[in-house]
């Protein structure tokens, strides 16, 4: 039996054809369209847009189709597309108090100005497989009933309500008071300690699973800070740019975002009386689990500015930011399947030498003790 050790262009091409055929699946089953994925797998599309750092539901849906449904692979495709796109403008900060909300809930107040809006959520579904969905000729779901009254145009954020009483720390303006550009880790390498803008960007792009586990670890005592979900909201916000030649904001469209403001206990310090502190999460698209995890980890990473002792992984910006990116992590873990013949040969040679040396030591030295 001869073992082929190297593969060439022909093998790669054949592998690509094999992949394409498996991705397509049984040809007797109609192919998914990009529009079907965009419309019916919206949460996958949202995650790909959020971690892909690109708001484009059509391209995200295409990436999911091309990636055979593998979400990290789809994120990778979107990132690789995004990487060379020109930066035409920087938007003004979005204003989520003016969000057209589809969902807005607070766990800290039973009712609040603007009210609780449950919206589309799995929260109170019973997780029983719905075999009606598997039946051919699925019936159209009933349209949700219209609300009795329209929502307020502006919904104040819970954190601002607490802020009016001075019970929560004021939002810390950046050192340059917002005059300078916001950091961008895709344009400048990260340096540590990282500022909050960079941390939040890294978290917003970070792998949902990794952030979820880190957030969970803070709840289980590793850097805990007693969080409350002050507010979670999801809906459409307007994106504006201020063209230099015009000098006033111009709306360029609406995007869906999810936002979470965590409210955390803080015992206070010599200079600061006890008050609540903030953790913040925001992503493109509807990613509720992600923004909640992000807000917990953001709060944990703020230990320096709050003068807390850092003892847990979730508080270590270098640890969290260096390992949060799914494209980086997936690449480096999986590169182990690339050939390492040369390094392995070096190790093989070394182990053999060490074993030979050990053998000769044994024969040269005292005879081994007999077992008794």
């Amino acid at each position, binding site marked *: 039996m001869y073992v082929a*050790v190297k593969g060439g262009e022909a093998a790669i091409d054949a592998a690509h054809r094999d992949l394409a055929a498996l991705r397509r699946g049984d040809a007797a089953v109609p192919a998914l369209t990009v529009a079907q994925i965009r419309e019916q797998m919206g949460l996958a599309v949202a995650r790909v847009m959020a971690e892909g750092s690109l708001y484009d539901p059509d391209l995200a849906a295409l990436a999911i189709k091309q990636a055979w449904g593998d979400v990290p692979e789809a994120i*990778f495709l979107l990132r690789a597309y995004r990487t060379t796109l020109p930066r035409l403008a920087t938007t003004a900060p979005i204003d989520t108090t003016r969000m057209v909300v589809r969902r807005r809930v607070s766990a800290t107040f039973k009712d609040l100005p603007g009210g609780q809006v449950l919206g589309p959520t799995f929260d109170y579904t019973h997780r029983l497989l719905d075999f009606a969905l598997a039946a051919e000729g699925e019936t159209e779901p009933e349209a949700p009933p219209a609300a009795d009254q329209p929502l307020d145009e502006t919904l104040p954020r819970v954190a601002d309500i607490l802020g009016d009483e001075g019970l929560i720390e004021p939002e810390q303006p950046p050192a340059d008071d917002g005059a300078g550009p916001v950091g961008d880790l895709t344009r400048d390498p990260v340096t540590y300690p990282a500022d909050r803008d960079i941390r939040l960007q890294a978290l917003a792009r970070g792998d949902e699973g990794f952030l979820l586990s880190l957030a969970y670890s803070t709840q289980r005592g590793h850097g805990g800070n007693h969080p409350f979900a002050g507010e979670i909201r999801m809906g459409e916000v307007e994106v504006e740019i201020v063209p230099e030649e015009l000098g006033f904001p111009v709306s360029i469209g609406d995007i869906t975002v999810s936002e979470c403001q965590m409210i955390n206990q803080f015992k206070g310090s010599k200079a600061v009386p006890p008050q609540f502190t903030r953790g913040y999460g925001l992503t493109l698209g509807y990613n509720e689990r992600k923004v909640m995890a992000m807000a917990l980890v953001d709060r944990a990473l703020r230990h320096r500015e709050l003068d807390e002792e850092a003892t847990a992984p979730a508080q270590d910006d270098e640890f969290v930011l260096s390992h949060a990116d799914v494209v980086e992590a997936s690449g480096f873990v999986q590169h182990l399947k690339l050939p390492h013949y040369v390094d392995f040969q070096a190790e093989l040679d070394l182990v053999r030498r060490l074993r030979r040396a050990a053998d000769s030591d044994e024969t040269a030295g005292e005879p081994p003790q007999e077992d008794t």
Partner: protein
Amino acid sequence: MTAPDPGVTFGYLDEQTKRMIRRAILKAVAIPGYQVPFAGREMPLPYGWGTGGIQVTASVIGGDDVLKVIDQGADDTTNAVSIRRFFRRVTGVATTEHTTEATLIQTRHRVPETPLRAGQILIYQVPIPEPLRRMEPRETETRKMHALSDYGVMHVKLYEDIAQHGCISTSYDYPVRVNGRHVMAPSPIPKFDNPKMHDAPFLQLFGAGREKRIYALPPYTSVVSLDFEDHPFTVQAWDRVCDLCGATDSYLDEVVTDDRGGRLFVCSDSDYCTGRRAAGHRGPMAATAAGEALSDAMAAVGREDGEARP
């Protein structure tokens, strides 16, 4: 030269990005062995596959360059094939397997056996650019250690190896001191290749994409592998020759030829081995069935369908 894909910029990266990377390279050349942070881009190949080397190549390559890509010393390994194909597509430049014909050589894990000459550029793909990372996981600390030339931990590590094993048990990515100043990771090349870096007439560039670092060795830079007076640095040696071409001076890969313990030892540098065989050199196993099968396989794979050896 074939026509590049009209849908992408020459070299894939946009011009601003290439300029940013060239600046980082210039800085790296000015401070040999110092790791320059750069805003590494996401590439259409995965991290770990050579995105740093690819970005460096994409930033320095020109229309009249001749590119060679090797992985484990060989032109016909899948990743080398894939990267070469990528550059053919996004630049249309000529590619070669001959070390002597190339102006740019992108490599993973090897320095070619054929000595490079002045004017050639060797571009290394680097997974972990920080030589101190295994001793100190924190970047904030390692940057300080480099700034202060505080390399004590490295010497302690090497000393502990000797105390434990009687020798330094680092066989690849063996740390070097550059220009008498920075300790540098040579990337996971076998230590066999370390001496080729010293006082070399060609430019050496190192790209780490995921870690976003670029570093460089300008021509004729001193590159000294760390050691002790009583335990001098040595390289791997074999008590055998290449089974196919009979070379006595090349790094040998072990090839398992069957499931009955059969082994061949052949040059990891496929161009060197092929060149020697073309010149009439024969190794001890060249005429055996396994030797011929391997030789045929090396000649047949790695090329475009129907393409002659470039």
